[in-house]
């Protein structure tokens, strides 16, 4: 996957890494820190269609339940089984091994750049 600086971001604290027509989606280190110890992730089933902005999963920590929003319209091609089995990957490696889902898409909506997202969270 590309460097975090190369990726796109949403205001919901998700990152999107695009390769061809496939978007890999995860949550940012900022979001992972805010959530605290992640204990459970609930991801959509492979093959399900998702709509931009709709809730497709949940990320639960000892403090809170965060929602996973689909950043694009498309179809889920893969989910990260490793993160389902070991949810703490979201904390230890949010931009890498803690990725959540892969989605095929036809059109990319307007997303934030790394600089824009950094400005949003004030880091």
């Amino acid at each position, binding site marked *: 996957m590309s460097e975090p600086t190369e990726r796109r971001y949403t205001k919901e604290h998700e990152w999107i890494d695009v390769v061809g027509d496939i978007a890999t989606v995860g949550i940012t280190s900022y979001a992972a820190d805010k959530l605290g110890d992640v204990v459970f992730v609930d991801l959509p089933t492979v093959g399900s269609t998702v709509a931009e902005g709709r809730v497709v999963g949940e990320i*639960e920590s*000892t403090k809170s339940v965060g929602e996973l929003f689909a950043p694009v319209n498309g179809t889920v091609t893969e989910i990260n089984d490793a993160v389902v089995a070991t949810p703490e990957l979201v904390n230890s490696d949010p931009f890498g091994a803690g990725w959540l889902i892969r989605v095929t898409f036809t059109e990319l909506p307007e997303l934030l750049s790394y600089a824009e997202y950094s400005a949003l969270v004030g880091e």
Partner: protein
Amino acid sequence: MPTIHSTDRFQDRHIGTDSVAQLEMLSAVGYDSVDDLVLAAVPKSIHVNPLENSSIPEAATEREALAELRLFANKNTVRRSMIGLGYYDTITPAVIKRNVLENPSWYTAYTPYQPEISQGRLEALINFQTMVEDLTGLDIANASMLDEGTAVVEAMLLARRASKSVSKVFLVDADAFPQTKALLANRAAAVGIELRELSRVEASETSLPDAFGVMVQYPGASGRVWDPSAVLAAVKEQGGIAVVAADLLALTLLKSPGEFGADVAVGITQRFGVPMGFGGPHAGYMAVRNGLERQLPGRLVGVSQDAAGHPAYRLSLQVREQHIRREKATSNICTAQVLLSVMASMYAVYHGPGGLKRIAQSVRAKAIRFASTIDALGFELASEDFFDTVTVKAKGMAADIVAAALQRNYNLHLVDADTISISFDETTTEAEVLDVATVFGWKEKTLAEPLRGPGFLARTTDYLTHPVFNTHHSETGMMRYLKYLADKDYALDRGMIPLGSCTMKLNAATEMEAVTWPEFGGIHPFAPEADVVGYLDLIEQLQGWLAEVTGYDEVSLQPNAGSQGELAGLLAIRGYHHSRGDLHRTACLIPASAHGTNAASAVLAGMKVVVVATNELGNVDLDDLRAKIAEHADELAALMITYPSTHGVYEHEVRDITDAVHAAGGQVYVDGANLNALLGYARFGDFGGDVSHLNLHKTFCIPHGGGGPGVGPVAAKAHLAPFLPGHPLAQRDTINRGGATLPEHFNIVSAAPYGSPSILPISWAYVRMMGAEGLKAATGAAVLAANYVAAKLRDHYPVLYSGDNGLVAHECILDLRPLTAATGVTVDDVAKRLIDYGFHAPTMSFPVAGTFMVEPTESEDLVEIDRFIAAMVAIKAEADALAAGRWSVDDNPLVNAPHTAQAVIVGEWDHPYSREEAVYPVRALIRGKYWPPVRRIDQAYGDRNLVCACPPIEAFVD
């Protein structure tokens, strides 16, 4: 001439600070009298004038109050109840009654939010969960539900969110309990679920209407035992969820729901040694198959490990609670019925699997002998097989037979003009079975010989095989097991529990006295009105007193918890708007600082949540409120506010707030959680409230029971009275509805007509013994104590919010965030270190993350309050020492807290502070220390590795 006067005033026993102590506290706060202080704190615009014709009599002494309660009791008639419908007479083992129900170590504890000091009741609760899991044949059970009817409602809501079906239909067994059907109807209507009754014929077919779920009663209300597996399979085939409401005692003999395909099992554990109590409190239950555990409402106890790697219990999946999910919550259930689930679980521990089975066999034998006798008389029976309930067809004679039975002191259930059902239980004797048969015309001296063998659904699987259910069968063993568990826990019998918003005040022994009287315990919720006159009189009197002190017109005691009172209040508002044709009024304004149940209840009442901002003082932002009202003017249904606020402050502008909502056609719901800061000084109804719930378990002294029972009455102005909860089986409508008929679906929110009546004598006694003056004095003492703590700790921890004249209400928020920023010491560290100092921590991170909310209550004396202040000051000094470099950040008395005895004794001591500093930070602890049984518990580990049943004994071997 010498005057004869009362020598003892209860008020002086209930309020911990005497006039000398109060003077000392007042000087620290800067006021001359308690009255001056409270009148300065409470905004002038809402001060109440004393009532001229109060319905609350002059305070009675403890002895006088008990004598009056005795008069109420004498007006109840305890008959042999054979009504059934989910409530059965039972024998409470005396060892459980004395050592649990009558033992403050169990009933004065709080919800186990601090797991390190709650291991005893957490173990009892995991026993409960294991018992339910075993008997239902399902994987994970929660720590109890409020009652069976609401548990079925929660199962329906769970089915809707977990089901893959898009149908809006939920199928309901025609043979379900009538109160369950009524509850389902009311709750389904509010959230757009369509109910369809599943007739007995349909239930035997394989093609069913499209539905997201189905509920079957097992055995049925009629007593029928049948095999529902085909129905369950048909619904699951469509992607629906299968719910079975099952009798746990029957399940010791019958094939379990898990074995015939249920996804969810619900029910009640009352007949496991908990008195009927005219309807409650009892522990309901819910169990689910694997895969649905994160959908479970309520509380769930799980196993984790402590800092030393030892197994330790704690509440699991806490984030699933509505205080985090708020308007996204799909349940508003906060609390459990801990005291009652402890009793029920101990009944199973005491009897063991063999004992329970013998009880069930005996119950079934009585039913079979009776049925055989009735059969011999030529009566038609409604079903082939049954467990404990026999339904008899007696064309045109049913009422006469029920009347004849009443003459002999039996209450049978009149189903309709042609049908009677008779339920047998643990307490029924053979002579009584014969006696009832006589009413039907049996003339022999013995019952007919049984015609039936065991049921065709006989259970073949084991249950309750864990050692805990096979060890404590002698009374000595049971007594010691209960003591062993109680000793692990910190309850009010050890010291102060300064939990803000929880009101951990005295639950006086006299108040508790009547709870276990048979005239209150031995009454079935659907007994005839003539049998329950004492109860109804007490209920009506208490309703009147509660209405008076809150400034409302009518009160319903039906809601079984604060959350249920909220729901009832919002449903009343919904009913009111609907009655005026305002169907579009669905927007509910809720301040950001509100307790999470507010939002969850609003959603379940079919409303849409609109969040109102709070300002930097923690109050409702009036500008934002006006903007939100303008934005939602046409659809405004209600505003929910808490007064004093969840921040422990008397908001100055409360009248402006309620006026603005009324001007826009909305109703004002005042959350009465903090009523104890207002009694005698202001009334919700006078400053704009239309409806409120009260927490009798906070303000009116019902003990917290370690996490339930609660009682959450709903109080309303006359215009909402027609929409307050009713009940299809109520003996009497105790609410003056101004001539209106009962609301649609009765607005029923609990399975029993008056909720949990057996604990109402507690609140009745409190008001009776305090009198109006005493209630006011308690408010003053509580407000003084909170302001004293704030004044004494302000220099060490900033007090986050205050109101008029810099004063707080009955609680104060201590801001620990500056400490955390300066020293790295967290709220958790301070909370756990307080255990080493012999305290239960205040409320952590509610309503503001990184803070403590402290509520001393009026019942603590100055010595205990000062001991707490000293502990907080000392811990602050420890944090400062840490910051100054005295210890390393990962090895110091704070981060290692709490310290167990084992932690300071075993092995080499290699920490940079002494053993004495670890466990005796204050010398006074040497003679009387509470020792936590486990070290700090790893929360994340337990949520990642969910185990919610008793661990094997080997897990505890070091």
